[in-house]
């Protein structure tokens, strides 16, 4: 380990980002990876509030959306006036917009913490969503604001027409923002954000105004949300009023929480996974949002540290070499888990077919298997899978936690011995 070893993960991330388009070459994959790029920035900016400062915002999309609108307007103004401004700096317009509105709304909302802060953020979110229907000039009404990313000053002959060029623009901004947001957590203010999250009262008695800490964190989070919104505007070349509403505000909460708010990497995992699910799952099933909802509930109930937390808690086991001792227990629950999963999917898809696609008749197909949705056999199978899988899992789950705790204990004592 030398003193620059902390840079290694970032070089790996940069290499991954560079190589990805050569691994996943299809247009759909390129689009999806672009979406992931600004979803990551958005989710990380949200987690500056929730995971780091302990502020649950229900209106974070306000800064994302307004950043997007302003970027789209700026693009149009630049194109009309032929201003010599290249596209890659445009996300800054989004960021500064997010920052400005965060200063404005944050000044009010960060006077309170906890539930009061959450309620104010919800109110501001509704307020801006309502404005989007009234101020048609800025928000573009039902049709939104269209723009074109190719009309700006070209540098080195890059037009940003092809998706691959947009991908690299988003990827570069994503990397930059990730580094900046990680660095923020390693500053005096970033550390005090954690202190305010853990114990706001004590923070006041070591010289820090908790309101000021919350306010600055809110502004910085607003800036990065605005950058994400700006990149989204460049990617889609259209911004509609729905981006400032409650749905994206809830969506970013899901991303951060499912990934894990206690770790820097958590929201990145959440953003990648949720984007993947949203795009690919929606191709297969009309009930994809139900799966996302069920996953969220399961994470809240059984993995409050998120999927990132589930992965990271195996770190000490891997480094101490006790990981393989939990594998038998995991293998044991693999079958009942699979039964529950298949039973659950069957239940959702068959019900979805019967209820939503009733006009198409009972014949349906799931993962290449043809069957009739109203056949009693199918429903018996669903009940058997769910009941047997559920009972088995309930019986066997304690063994998993026993095996895990034993392995962790061993890992700890090994570390102390070393």
């Amino acid at each position, binding site marked *: 380990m030398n003193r620059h070893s902390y840079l290694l993960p970032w070089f790996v991330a940069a290499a991954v980002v560079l190589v990805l388009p050569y691994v996943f070459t299809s247009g759909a994959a390129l689009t999806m990876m672009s979406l992931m790029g600004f979803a990551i920035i958005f989710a990380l900016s949200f987690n500056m509030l929730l995971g780091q400062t302990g502020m649950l915002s229900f209106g974070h999309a306000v800064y994302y959306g307004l950043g997007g609108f302003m970027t789209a307007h700026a693009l149009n103004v630049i194109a009309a006036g032929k201003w010599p401004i290249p596209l890659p700096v445009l996300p800054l317009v989004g960021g500064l917009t997010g920052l400005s509105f965060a200063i404005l709304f944050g000044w009010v909302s960060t006077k309170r913490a906890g539930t009061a802060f959450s309620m104010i953020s919800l109110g501001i979110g509704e307020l801006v969503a309502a404005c989007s229907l009234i101020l048609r000039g800025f928000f573009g009404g039902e049709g939104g604001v269209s723009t074109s990313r190719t009309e700006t000053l070209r540098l080195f002959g890059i037009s940003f027409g092809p998706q691959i060029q947009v991908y690299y623009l988003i990827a570069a901004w994503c990397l930059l923002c990730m580094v900046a947001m990680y*660095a*923020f957590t*390693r*500053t*005096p*203010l*970033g*550390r*005090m954000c*954690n*202190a305010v*999250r*853990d*114990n706001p*009262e*004590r*923070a*006041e*008695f*070591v*010289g*820090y*105004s908790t309101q*000021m*800490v919350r306010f*600055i964190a809110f502004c*910085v989070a607003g800036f990065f949300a605005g950058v994400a919104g700006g990149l989204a505007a460049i990617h889609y070349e259209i911004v509609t009023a729905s981006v400032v509403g409650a749905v994206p505000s809830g969506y970013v909460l899901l991303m951060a929480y499912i990934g894990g708010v206690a770790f820097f990497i958590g929201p990145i995992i959440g953003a990648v996974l949720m984007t993947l699910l949203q795009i690919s799952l929606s191709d297969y099933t009309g009930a994809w949002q139900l799966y996302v909802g069920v996953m969220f509930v399961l994470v809240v109930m059984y993995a409050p540290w998120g999927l990132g937390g589930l992965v990271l808690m195996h770190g000490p086991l891997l480094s101490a070499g006790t990981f393989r001792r939990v594998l038998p227990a995991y293998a044991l629950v693999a079958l009942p888990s699979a039964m529950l999963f298949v039973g659950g999917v069957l239940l959702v898809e068959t019900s979805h077919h019967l209820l939503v696609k009733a006009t198409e008749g009972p014949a349906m197909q799931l993962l290449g298997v043809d069957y009739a949705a109203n056949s009693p056999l199918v429903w018996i199978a669903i009940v058997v899978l769910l009941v047997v899988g559920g009972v088995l899992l309930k019986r066997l789950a304690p063994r998993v936690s026993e095996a895990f705790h034993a392995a962790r204990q061993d890992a700890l004592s090994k570390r102390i011995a070393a």
Partner: protein
Amino acid sequence: MSHPNGPSALQLIDVHKRFGVTPIIRGLNLDVKQGERHAIIGPNGAGKSTTFHLVSGRFPVTSGQVLLKGESINGLPPYLINRRGMSRSFQVTNIFPRLSVFENIRCGVLWSLGYKYSFWHLIERSRDARERSEAILEQINLTARRDVPAGVLSYAEQRALEIGITIAGGADVIMLDEPTAGMSRSETEHAVGLIRKVSEGKTLVIVEHDMSVVFDLADRISVLVYGQVIATDTPQRIRANAAVQEAYLGTPAAEADHA
């Protein structure tokens, strides 16, 4: 040693505090001299902790004056009072449970080193903050627990950390609210040694129920009864004071022997 004519570190002049219509502090006068170790004793409900809350800015006073080093701190929020050189601990342990022991101390250090709300310094490169925090860890004997989350420390360790956070910012007026509450005999002795060490050359105000700790540490003692100071004097004279014995010490001979 007392400093009867020295400059005041902390003065409370005719301070009143009411919660609703209930008076808790009723015309309290207190004068803590710079450099002395001053204990506040009194029966339960006398208003000792409330006095701490009033001085540290957690509650505003209803009327009266609170002066820190001769300047009024009436109505200031806790963080501004802390920046003027006053730091307090809490009766119920009040730490940052998910942060490491080292980080708990560092949170107490940052403002006093001028980092303020900086997001343009990297914390790992802030050598002064690290060295100061490590020196304090050494002082409070928690160096071995440096990287442990503060929430998993033992009770006595958390109490030591509580004192560590309080002194971390280098405040010259230190207020400790029952620092040895709930400790065993040997833990208490250890804590008294620690308090003596960290309050060297500073002003210490301490609320304490353990009379042996009070008579061991304090240069002067103030007795608080029903929201008023009924006596301020040296330990010997407080022990001999008839009014104090009647109001608080109860069976003075037994307590005095114990001390």
